[in-house]
């Protein structure tokens, strides 16, 4: 499924995260076939901010594999997000701005559920007050 076709409301971006993920180069290199770990520190429906375990170059194609916490479903819990490194956000900290260019339908559902859940919780809290 390509991005941008949905007519649904765009879910809000979640910030101040520390969401563990595995990052693999789209074309794995022999020295690191399993990739390395990273933290997603900001996540939107079409982009994310990645704190990486290793260095990347702008334009690198990567696959960010993430398990969204607390989503009980049958089958493989891992959601692969196919991404491109858009820019180096903070070089010493290895923070990269990343565009999500492609993902499967299930991954997209899970991502949206994860993003919407926080927004729903915030709305509920406001409602309670």
């Amino acid at each position, binding site marked *: 499924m390509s991005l941008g076709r949905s007519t649904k409301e765009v879910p809000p971006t979640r910030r101040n995260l520390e969401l*563990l*993920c595995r990052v693999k180069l789209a074309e794995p290199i022999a020295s690191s076939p399993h990739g*390395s*770990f990273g933290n997603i520190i900001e996540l939107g429906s079409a982009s994310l901010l990645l704190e*990486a375990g290793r*260095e990347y170059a702008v334009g690198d194609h990567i696959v960010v594999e993430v398990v969204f*916490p607390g989503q009980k479903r049958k089958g493989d819990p*891992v959601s692969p997000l196919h991404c491109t490194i858009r820019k180096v956000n903070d070089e*010493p900290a290895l923070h990269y701005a990343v565009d999500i260019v492609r993902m499967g339908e299930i991954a997209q559902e899970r991502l949206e559920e994860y993003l919407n859940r926080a927004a729903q919780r915030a709305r509920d809290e406001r409602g309670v007050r």
Partner: protein
Amino acid sequence: MTIYGIDLGTSNSVIAGDDEVLPCPNGSGAILPSAVAFMPNGVRKVGKAARRRRAIDSDNTVYSSKRIIGRRWDAQETQNFVSRYPFRLVELDGWPAFETRAGRVTPTEVGAIILDALCERGDLPVQTSEVHLTVPASFSTAQRDATEQAAKLAGLQNVSLIEEPSATAYAYLHADEPFERAIVYDLGGGTFDCAVLECVDGEPRITAHASDLVLGGDDIDHQIAAWVARYVIEKHNWDLTNYSEVYDRLLARCEDAKIQLSDDTEAEIHLSQVDPECPAAEEVVTLTRALIEDLCQDLVRRTFIACDSVIRSAGVTPLDIDAVLLAGGASFMPVIQKGVAAYFGHSGRMSFDPTEVVALGASVAHRVG
């Protein structure tokens, strides 16, 4: 002229001067996690930023190195450290060193990097000022020498070592909270120290001290992690202890849960944040305060065995102690505070934040009396 007090702790480090703790330069509060990350691009990160790297680059993120500062490679404590932590530790001329992508780094050098970060504050002349650097009362000469060496490497020019229990006592005396005979109960990240002190002419004098060098907040984290790992293996036949980096992430999450449980009665551990490859990665394990209290009963009991020993050595009884001064982050745990009250017959004093009291006391050590 300001005198700076520095608590170079196993888990966290703090600097104080002019009666207050100084915030970390990066604006993340007063407490600097004692962690150093060696980044792939050659940059070094210290403190909170380094602590975050534990999850994604455990081989190159060093923490708890105070446990082996000044220890020989063949010391039992070093070998225990090798078996419990995810680092690649190698022998370097008879001493341990961390094998990192930045090369071999000794525990003394790690200490120097942390001190350097703690003292790097632009307009404050910490390096050229008088600094009181704290060490556990049980530190050997070699450990004290290694700590002093770390201070020298960090460029501190005028350093005196002060024992941690004395520093805690100075904080209370300076705040007009006098005592005749006190015990300092200091459950830090890596060690438990207790000391009986008498106040003579306004100065605290240690009359007896005891330590349990393998008992601290870290050990509580291991205890919680072992419970979670057992739960996951029984329920899902998946072992979270097989890979050191996975286990290390579990430890970090258990530490967060432990801290949260000082205020809340429940905390959650998301397995997706520990091991994304686990077949039950979406599962959330809920920990309760009651469970944690049960899990660390033995560890808490061990602190009182050390208290028994130190009180006996001082030739007094618990009833002769008129103040129990709490230090160390684990003192925030309700189970510790309840245990202290039951053992001594009165609550421990916590007028100061127990994570800050050692540095504060070290900074005022010259002004008491």
